[in-house]
């Protein structure tokens, strides 16, 4: 500024930096700093377990999304009772004729004993429905948890106290019992007794109830994080420059909260998958004609003595999915928060 030479040098440097940033888009910015997110991604890429579980999880989501397409290519649907239509498939006791649950070139995973539905498409659609419910619940729980947790933590005082007590109650609440006890009551109010419960209503109420009972843990976690962050000097620095509370929350606090949010969300999704399957198994939530992981396991428990294969497919896939997702959650945590590594 004072001497002309350094300024000229600066201009050149500025141009250099600009050239660099335009030449190397996002991937190779040698002159730029490595963001915490980028470093986490590099750490994650080095984590073998994490990468493998990520591929497994992605595979599950892909087949869930593409279920109708796969079913179309495969040429069957989960509702047709093939065993009833074709008498050569099931014997007089309802068990598949062929060994291993009737696995054949036509029915890759065999056919269901009794009704004779196709296990492969039934499982595909089951995964699709289960993941849809779990993913929607996770999303809602995370959004609600973020909103409530940050509000309570940032405002503090009476709001914080009130929210804290609500969280305490929710965390102490036996949610499964609640669901089993109140499900019929709610349905009897919403649906006339002479009609069948529409599937969309079941799904919506499942998601709603799981969300209403599930946001508390993430909200509590974020509240604590915000309480710690709010006293940090960079927040005070933002206040001194005149930031609005909204700007402080979205620009200063939230970027520092993505780590716990992501970790919580990846660990919550498999929990919701199992919770939903558990409810379906117990007879609340989705019921038989609708394909679902839990419905399938419930059906399998009826017939496992004559045909263990039918139980095997939903059980094994669910175990693989939940383990992979939990390992992924661990890896995500290790990558984002290296200090917590065991």
């Amino acid at each position: 500024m004072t001497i002309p030479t350094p300024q000229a040098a600066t201009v050149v440097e500025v141009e250099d930096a600009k050239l660099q940033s335009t030449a190397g888009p996002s991937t190779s910015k040698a002159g730029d700093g490595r963001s915490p997110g980028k470093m986490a991604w590099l750490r994650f890429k080095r984590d073998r377990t994490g990468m493998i579980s990520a591929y497994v999880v992605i595979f599950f989501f892909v087949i869930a999304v593409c279920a109708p397409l796969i079913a179309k290519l495969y040429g069957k649907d989960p509702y047709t009772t093939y065993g009833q239509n074709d008498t050569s498939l099931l014997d007089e006791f309802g068990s598949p004729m062929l060994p291993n649950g009737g696995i054949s070139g036509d029915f890759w995973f065999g056919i269901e004993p009794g009704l004779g539905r196709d296990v492969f498409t039934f499982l595909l659609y089951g995964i699709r429905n289960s993941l849809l419910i779990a993913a929607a619940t996770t999303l809602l729980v995370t959004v609600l948890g973020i909103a409530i947790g940050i509000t309570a933590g940032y405002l503090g005082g009476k709001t914080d106290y009130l929210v804290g007590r609500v969280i305490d109650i929710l965390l102490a609440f036996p949610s499964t019992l609640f669901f089993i006890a109140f499900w019929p009551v709610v349905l009897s109010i919403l649906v006339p007794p002479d009609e069948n419960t529409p599937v969309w209503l079941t799904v919506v109420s499942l998601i709603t109830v799981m969300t209403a009972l599930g946001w508390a843990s993430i909200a509590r976690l974020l509240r604590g994080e915000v309480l710690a962050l709010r006293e940090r000097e960079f927040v005070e620095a933002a206040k001194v420059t005149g930031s609005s509370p909204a700007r402080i929350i979205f620009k200063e606090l939230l970027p520092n909260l993505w780590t716990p949010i992501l970790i919580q969300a990846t660990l919550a999704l498999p929990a919701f998958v199992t919770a939903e399957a558990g409810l379906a198994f117990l007879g609340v939530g989705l019921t038989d004609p609708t394909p679902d992981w839990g419905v399938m396991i419930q059906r399998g428990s009826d017939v496992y003595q004559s045909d263990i294969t039918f139980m095997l497919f939903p059980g094994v896939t669910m175990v693989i999915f939940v383990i992979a997702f939990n390992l992924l959650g661990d890896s995500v945590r290790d990558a984002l928060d290296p200090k917590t590594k065991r």
Partner: protein
Amino acid sequence: MSSKDPLLDVSGLTKHFPIKGGFPIRRTVGAVQAVDGLDFSVAEGESLGLVGESGCGKSTTGRLITRLLEPTAGTISYRGQDITHASRKQLAPVRSEIQMIFQDPYASLNPRQTVGKIITAPMEINDINPAGGREARVRELLETVGLNPEHYNRFPHEFSGGQRQRIGVARALALEPKLIVADEPVSALDVSIQAQVVNLLQKLQKELGIAFLFIAHDLAIVRHFSQRVAVMYLGKIVEIADREDLYGNPRHPYTRALLSAVPEATADETPARERILLTGDVPSPVNPPSGCRFRTRCWKATDKCASEAPPLVRVEGSREGHLTACHYPEVTQSVAAVPKARTAPSGPKLDKNTEDPTAGA
């Protein structure tokens, strides 16, 4: 300096933090009297040092002036405008003129934002569009504080403590402030880096004419940096004076004790100063002593000190603008006012007392 209208004028500034207790209904059961009735002013372009030991309310004072905390009582006026209880919107025009540098360079920068974003943010918030664009201005600021402008897209974790503090300084400068509250800006840094940062601040003060409220516990740095110095003890200012007056002629016993504790970098031949070791701890600000707050540790304390709080006034023998809050001020250029029993009981203390710290350091 004293002839001008003050840039910042603080009178009777008080902050009491309530202590909540009781069950089941929580109510205020007491108060931490962190800051209790401060009066001082900062002139334009001046640097006022605020020293005192840990917990005496220095940082609280800084946060009150930047309005991070709400004062319990008293007034803060900036250029004659009362900003004591101004809301965020009312403060907006003043915000850009009063900025702050923080103590911990590791906590004062958002780890998720690039340096460029951190320094641009104040301009965005206050809607300042410098000629040539904000990015160019940020690069210029980075250069001003002695950083490479190419560091624009780097993240805070890629810098050392000293460099981070420079980023903090650049952020404070982004709004072209008239007053910077520096809350122990160098106490978290290595000694070798401290000098760099202090020199940078001094350069800014001289070149840009920024007034500073320099909060520190290091007397040597305050002496290097500030034209005027205020000494705080337990939420009150006990002495305020020009630098030479305060360091050369301390009138309050506490100031003397503080000054005597500054380590000397002198060779063996020069006689060591007498060191005053204060006994006991700082009393709790929840329940401060009556009268003079320093009396519990003062070797001169009498009944009068317990009953009457000494006002902050110019005492006999002091120069203009040298205010002391003591009933029994130290004698000008006093030498042997300290009884032996209260001084260091052992150690390499020499009897030859020199009460002229200006010769040292």
